[in-house]
C-alpha cells in the first residue's frame, strides 16, 4: 500500500500468494530425512467466511469440487473465532495430491473474488512419539512457519526452531517470529 493510499485511507485488501504451496512435497521429504516427522495426509485451508449469498455459493462449489475428486475425504468445521476450516485427507504419502487439492480450494476462492478472505493452510505431520507438528502457510505473506502445539496451549519452541533450521533452504520460512501466530485447536493437530 503506497503512502498516498495510506493517507487517503484506501486500504487495498492483501491478495494471497498461492503458488508457494507446491514447494511442500519436497520439503516433506527433507523433513522426513532430517527428523522423525512424517506427513499424516491431512491438510486444511482456513478462511474467514464472508456474509452474503455470493460467498456461500462459492463455498458450496468448492466442497462439491473436492467431493468429486477421488481420494479426498472432505470435512468442514468452524472454530470459535468464526473461521472456517476445509479439511482434506489423503493417503499419508500422497503429499502432492493433497497440495493439489488445497490449491484447487484456494484458486476457487480467489477466482470468486474472495482471495483476501484466505488466512492460512496447515499440513500436519507426526513422529513416532505421536507429537503433532503443523507446517502453517500464511497466504498474505507467502511464507511458512512450523507450529508444534503441546497440551495446555503451550508450544514446543525448541522443536519449531529445529524444524526451521531443517527447512530453511527448502521453504520460505517466515523471518519475523512475531508473525508465527498460534493456531490453537486447528483440525489435524
Amino acid at each position, binding site marked *: 500500500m503506497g503512502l498516498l493510499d495510506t493517507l487517503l485511507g484506501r486500504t487495498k485488501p492483501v491478495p494471497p500468494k498461492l503458488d508457494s504451496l507446491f514447494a511442500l512435497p519436497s520439503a516433506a521429504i527433507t523433513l522426513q530425512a532430517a527428523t522423525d516427522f512424517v506427513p499424516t495426509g491431512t491438510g486444511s485451508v482456513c478462511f474467514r467466511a464472508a*456474509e*452474503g449469498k455470493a460467498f456461500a455459493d462459492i463455498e458450496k462449489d468448492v466442497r462439491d469440487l473436492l467431493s468429486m475428486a477421488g481420494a479426498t475425504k472432505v470435512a468442514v468445521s468452524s472454530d470459535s473465532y468464526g473461521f472456517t476450516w476445509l479439511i482434506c485427507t489423503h493417503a499419508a504419502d500422497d503429499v502432492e495430491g493433497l497440495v493439489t487439492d488445497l490449491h484447487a480450494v484456494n484458486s476457487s476462492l480467489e477466482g470468486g473474488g474472495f482471495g483476501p478472505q484466505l488466512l492460512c493452510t496447515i499440513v500436519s505431520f507426526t513422529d513416532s512419539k505421536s507429537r503433532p507438528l503443523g507446517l502453517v502457510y500464511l497466504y*498474505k505473506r507467502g511464507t511458512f512457519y512450523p507450529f508444534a502445539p503441546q497440551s495446555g496451549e503451550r508450544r514446543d519452541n525448541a522443536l519449531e526452531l529445529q524444524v526451521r533450521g531443517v527447512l530453511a533452504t527448502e521453504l520460505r520460512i517466515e523471518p519475523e517470529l512475531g508473525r508465527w*501466530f*498460534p493456531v490453537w485447536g486447528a483440525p489435524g493437530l
Partner: protein
Amino acid sequence: MARTRYATDKGLIARMGATMFLIGLVFTAFILVVVLLLTRYSTVSNGGIIFIAILLGGAMCFGSYYWSDRIALSTAGARLVTPEQAPELHGVIDRLCALADMPKPRVAIAPTDMPNAFATGRSSKVAVVCVTEGLLRRLNTSELEGVLAHEMSHVAHKDVAVMTIASFLGIIAALMVRFAFYSELFGGGGRGRGRGGANQNALPVILVIMLIGMIVYAISFLLIRMLSRYRELSADRSGALLTGQPSALASALVKVSGDIARIPTRDLRAAEPLNAFFFAPALTTRRGELNMSAIFSTHPSLEKRLKELDKISQQLSR
C-alpha cells in the same frame, strides 16, 4: 481472472482528499497573510510572537504524536495484557493481523465498564490496541473482531499522524491569538504613546492578526472535525472489508452506542478527553441524545455508519 469485490468508495476518498487540501490551503493562506502583514508593519515583538507560537505549537504536536501511545494508555488507565492473560482477545488480533498482513500491535485492556475501543501509536512498532472490559463483556467474538478490525485500520491509515498534522494549524492559530492578546495587554498600548509615529501601526496590526487568527481557528476546527468523520467512515469500511462481516460491525455499533447512552454521567466525563480516538463518541445528555450538532462531532452519526455498512453488505451479496 479474479474479480475484485473490494472496490474503493471513490466519493469518500474524494471528499477526504478535498478536506485535507482545504486544511493545507487555509494553513498556507494564513501564513502568507501573516508574513505579508509583518513585512509591511514589522516590529520585533510581532515576529517573536509568530516564532514562539510556531515553536510551541510544533513542540506540542510533535510530543502528542511521538508519545501518543503512552499518553492514551495512561489517560485510559489501561494495562498491557499478555496472550496468557487474554487468550481470546490475542487470538482475534493474531488472525486479523495475518489477514491484513500487519505486524501485531500491543494489546491493552482498560478497566472501565463503558464499552469502547481505541488504537493509537505513531508507527506499527509502537502501535497499541486497547479495549475496555465493558466491551469484552458485551460483544460476542465476531462483533469484537469487527471493532478490532476498525481500530487496526486506523493504525494502518496512520490516522494519528494525519490528525496531528491537521490539528497543527488550529493549534498555531489559537496560540497566536493568545500571545497577541497578552502582548497587547502588557506592552502594546504603552509603547505606542511613548515613541510617537513609528509605532502607530503596531496596534491595528496586532488586532488584525488576532482577528485573522480567530477566523482561521474556527474554520480549521470545522474542517478538522469533518476530516475526522471521513477517517472514521474509512476505517469502518476497511474493517468491514477485512473481516467480510459488515453486519457484525453494525451490530457492535448499535450495542455500543445504545449502552453508552444508558451509562450514568460519571463515567462519561472521564472519557471526554480521549473522545477522538474512541470507537464511538462518548458525548451524550442525560436523555441519551447527542448534545452537539453534527458538524462538531468527531464521529459520523450512527445512522450514517450503519447505512455505509449496509452498502458493503449488499456489495458482498452480488
